[in-house]
């Protein structure tokens, strides 16, 4: 799959997640087993009113979304994989008024489990947070075909 195809698929996928829409998540970069999402700064996700720093929960959601969507870039076919666990380390507070990016990869894919890692940053090389996760493979058949076609962009071809 080309990087453009991957980017289109991930974009269509996160556009179906209402919470990602509410946060304004966008796809910055997609390639084989590589995905970067962007969380724009907004007042509605501030966790500390005194400093204007966004809440860790928004960063957790950004990293969960990036880690869960990198499957689209790592697997031959679209599969929805539920999260088994996430471990998030917060290294520094995100600076207000700047977007946060999350770069994810699946570093091990097995028949049943996918192991991911993800880094959230504002400036390259200065991590705001880091996350490792495990996701369960429940098979592509667990996801309705109509939804899979919507993500792969085949919805119209198949009538």
């Amino acid at each position, binding site marked *: 799959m080309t990087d453009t195809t991957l980017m289109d698929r991930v974009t269509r996928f996160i556009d*179906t*997640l*209402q*919470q*990602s*829409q*509410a946060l304004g998540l966008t796809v910055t970069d997609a390639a084989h087993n590589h995905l970067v999402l962007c969380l724009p700064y907004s*007042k*509605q*996700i*501030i*966790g*500390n*009113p*005194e400093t204007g720093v*966004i*809440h*860790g*929960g*928004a960063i*957790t*959601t*950004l*990293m*969960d*979304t990036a880690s*869960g969507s990198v499957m689209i870039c790592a697997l031959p076919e679209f599969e*929805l994989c*539920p*999260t*088994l*666990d*996430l*471990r*998030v*380390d*917060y290294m520094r*507070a995100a600076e207000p008024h700047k977007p946060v990016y999350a770069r994810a990869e699946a570093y091990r894919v097995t028949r049943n489990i996918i192991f991911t890692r993800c880094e959230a940053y504002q400036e390259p090389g200065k991590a705001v947070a880091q996350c490792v996760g495990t996701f369960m493979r429940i098979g592509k058949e667990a*996801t*309705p075909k109509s*939804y899979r076609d919507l993500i792969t962009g085949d919805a119209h071809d198949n009538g």
Partner: protein
Amino acid sequence: MTTAEVLRYTQETGDFSRMLNDIPYATFIGLECERFGDDLIFRLPRKASNIGNPILPAIHGGVIGGFMELSAAIYLMMSQEVLRMPLIVDFSLDYLRAGLDRETFAECRLTRQGNRVANVMITAWQKSRNEPIATARAHFLLED
């Protein structure tokens, strides 16, 4: 009102509305809190914008995480009289069941309080407390 005053007001009255109004992220996901004696129960009512799985539909795993993280921070502020938002260091979250599109609850337990670091356990459930949808563990730094 300063943060310290809001905290004192909340501790005295058990009315969390002012505190939660001051935290935009709490409003964003719709977090609520109620005190029963010394116990705090956190509540996340159904909210369309919290959905992260359109097929089931289910709440976004990140929102469940954010809900539990913020619950733990508020719980810590209330029980330890920390006069500011504690800093989260790390957060480890196990998803046990799908968080369906319905009301979710959480409760916290202070596992260990050191001089600088606190360890908090969080449990989230929906229909029954005996069937948690997620459990989590967080470390918070209480000073800079």
